[in-house]
């Protein structure tokens, strides 16, 4: 068990190092000078321009040679600093991300977990039940094939634009000052619902289809036929099939985390929802290296952590892995 985790942790650490290096390097490959872009909007006289350009370059530490910037980046990172944001100047990147990250977590965690649980349950129920199969299956195919942004626009148009049931934009009402009050909580929830529903529905379709197909496969396996011929009740057979079918689904969950994060990005943009995904767009359009770096660092850590959690859960639900690690035989 210890060796297993040591090996896993080493892999995670290497992945982290490479990903962070790429994360630092890629924004710097973007053509153009972010400070020149910032100052071009100011309409300055040449003398003030030169003075401002050099003061900003110094403030953002962009004048140093690249290797120096890279080392400074790691040094600052180890001290918990991600630099100053150009987009929200002069706020530090950590503050900007801190304000956005809660919104994204509130969307992503429930959407991922609930769609996974509900999708698996519904898929399992639908398998080999003709009426359900004929209704749930096409519906699920439709959902999972829908691009996030398209479903988001559709929901925004129907439920916010036409029916006025939900607000169309933002993380909370523009008429409220954030305070711990019922009005504010209610407003948070109302603004949260549509982006959540978008992510939930697309995810739900995928998991339902996956589970339905796996259950059919498992019900055809020898152990299932053997159980049936022993006269085991149908429910019991299905229970065993479900336990076996959820293992590949769990692997699928780990693999699809990246796509889910990508889906959150476009969904947040459609609803103007002030989370990490929306921030990505802002950071790219203002060529804010530091903010972009910070966001991707956060996504990297998040996806690695989630993968780790899935690894642990896999141990819990698959006795074969657990016993194998403890030196037992299969």
């Amino acid at each position, binding site marked *: 068990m210890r060796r297993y985790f040591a090996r896993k942790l080493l892999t995670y650490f290497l992945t982290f190092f490479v990903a962070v290096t790429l994360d630092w390097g890629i924004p710097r490959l*973007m053509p*153009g*000078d972010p400070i*020149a*872009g910032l100052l*071009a909007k*100011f309409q300055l*006289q*040449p*003398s*003030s*321009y*030169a*003075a*401002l*350009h050099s003061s900003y370059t110094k403030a953002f530490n962009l004048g140093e040679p690249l290797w120096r910037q890279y080392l400074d980046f790691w040094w600052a990172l180890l001290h918990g600093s991600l630099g100053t944001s150009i987009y*929200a*100047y*002069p706020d530090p990147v950590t503050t*900007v991300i*801190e*304000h*956005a990250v*809660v*919104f994204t977590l*509130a969307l*992503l*965690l*429930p959407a991922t*977990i*609930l769609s996974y*649980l509900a999708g698996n349950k519904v898929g399992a129920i639908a398998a080999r039940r003709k009426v359900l199969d004929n209704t749930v299956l096409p519906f699920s195919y439709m959902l999972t094939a829908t691009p996030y942004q398209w479903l988001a*626009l559709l929901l*925004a148009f129907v439920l916010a634009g036409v029916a006025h049931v939900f607000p*169309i*934009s933002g*993380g*909370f009402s*523009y*008429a*409220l*000052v*954030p*305070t*711990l*009050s019922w*009005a*504010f*909580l209610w407003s*948070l929830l109302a603004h*949260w619902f549509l982006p959540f529903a978008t992510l939930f529905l697309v995810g739900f379709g995928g998991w339902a289809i996956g589970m339905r197909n796996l259950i059919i496969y498992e019900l055809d396996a020898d152990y299932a036929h053997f159980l049936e011929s022993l006269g085991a009740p149908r429910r019991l057979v299905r229970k065993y099939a479900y336990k076996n079918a959820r293992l590949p689904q769990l692997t699928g969950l780990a693999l699809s985390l990246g796509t889910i994060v990508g889906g959150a990005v476009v969904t947040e943009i459609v*609803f*103007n929802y*002030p989370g990490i995904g929306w921030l990505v767009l*802002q950071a790219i*359009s*203002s*060529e804010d290296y530091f903010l972009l770096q910070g966001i991707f660092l956060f996504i990297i850590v998040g996806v690695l952590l989630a993968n780790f959690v899935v690894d642990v*859960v896999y141990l*819990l639900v698959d006795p074969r892995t657990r016993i194998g690690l403890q030196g037992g035989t299969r």
Partner: protein
Amino acid sequence: MHKHVKRAVAAVLAASLAAPAFAIGGAGASSHATTTSFPRNETVYTSGTAYSPPTNWNPLSIGAYATGTIGLLYEPLFLYDPTANKTVPWLATSGSWTSPTSFDIKLRDNVTWSDGQPFTAADVAYTIGLAKTSPTVPYANLGQYIADVQQVGKYEVVVDFSKPAYTQWQNFLYGNNATPMLPAHVWSKISASAVASFANPHPVGTGPMLLDEANAQEVAYKTSTHWWATKDLGLKLKFNYLVDIVNGSNNVELGQVLQGNIDLSNNFLPGISKLVGGISSSYGLQTYYAKAPYMLSANTVWLEPNIAKAPMSNVNFRKALAYAVDPRQIASVVYSNIVQPANPTGLLPNLASYVDKGVVAKSGFSYNPAKARALLKASGYKGRTITLEVPNGWTDWMAAAQVIVGDLKAVGINARATFPVYNTRVADLTNGTYDLALDNNAGPSATPWAYYDRIYQLPIQGKQTAQLNWERVNDPVSWALVQKLGTTPPTSTAALQSIYAQLEQRTLETMPVIPLWYNGAWAQYNTTYWTNWPSAAPSSNHYTPVMWGGWLGQDTTILALAALKTAK
């Protein structure tokens, strides 16, 4: 074990849902706010100006300060009214040249800062003095002309110049670069290197509102009870709060305006002309003009050739470009007529009195493909591919670029549109590596000086970093004329008109830039909660309707806000 997993999942879900409430709601307690909500009928909601969260209230951080910093908090000495082309005394009651190198400013005597201190000559002297002591302030170029700033009593300031600098000084006083006055008792504690860039989170101003609340979505101001203009000019804001919302995507903005969640939108919303009046009047939307061009003009869009490169260096080629493009087509197809084609001089409508009609009649250009072909032949153009750069995501300009490329191809120019990201396009223009680009000038100014300064600025550097002379025209004669404007007294109108006529003539003959159309001062209002918005109709409100920097507090948008009435 199964139960534990279920409990863990439930705990994670509950925690993730509660997180924003505590993180954001808890943070609110530490902000400026004393209010918890902005009642709809007491609040004006605006949008279309901010592209990043409000984090800065330093009026010298041009381009970075939050919407409202100049206008609602800090105020200049004079306002400029572009629709009437006149100045409005604001913190000053008058200002005049007493000699070619001496300017006298008389101040109001009942203005107070929001911390209760009186506004006096010391504040004005401090603000002007920064030009000499701090090289990062936007008006630092004035420093070389200013010899001395004297306070005469508490409410009069005399500025002595070492050499005449009429236009530079006028730019400091009024127009979209007018400098707001700063409280010397607060700002003198800030180091000279930081004055232009520190965030100023606790602003102390003379304006009609106070900073109330700021978060990633919006900035909110509360109406002050002691604004000097209420007593002096009888102006009073009828709303208690103004909330400016950070921009979302176009579809979100349009939805918000239609639903009445935003009262004033300064976004470019394609197709807005179809939603104003007529069968769409149930939306309650209004624009400045009830029909085309719907919007006031904000700045001139140019087709900018890179004159340092062949074939753009050939004057006949540049003239061929001018005759080949049909701006009427762009106005109608791309903009549904919410913009209008530019005058051949490119000067905005507020400067019409400076346009020499004789010069335009003689040397002006208009759409004429046959003439373009003839000029193209005379230029000896051999068919090299010419690219036209437009920043990616500027959808209206991208569509306009396609129309222009079509027009250019029709006369035999092998043109192609490219859409690099904004910063790449800025780099290409500053380094001079582009062929053609769409570009616009700085916006309304009280005289054409800024327009020509922008075109003819010399010397040309390797990197044209300031947004001046990006087309790299090397015309010392015109540049000398521009400089001569700066030393000609504003009272010598005949001499000024003659210089302007010469500049217009030379510009039309050499075509350093090709004026195409006037970008609009995009403004659409929803009249559900607030009425009497700026309009060309006979009403009391003919002021500028945009919250953009340079307009709200330096042009007359603040007067427009003061004229709003509650809808009954």
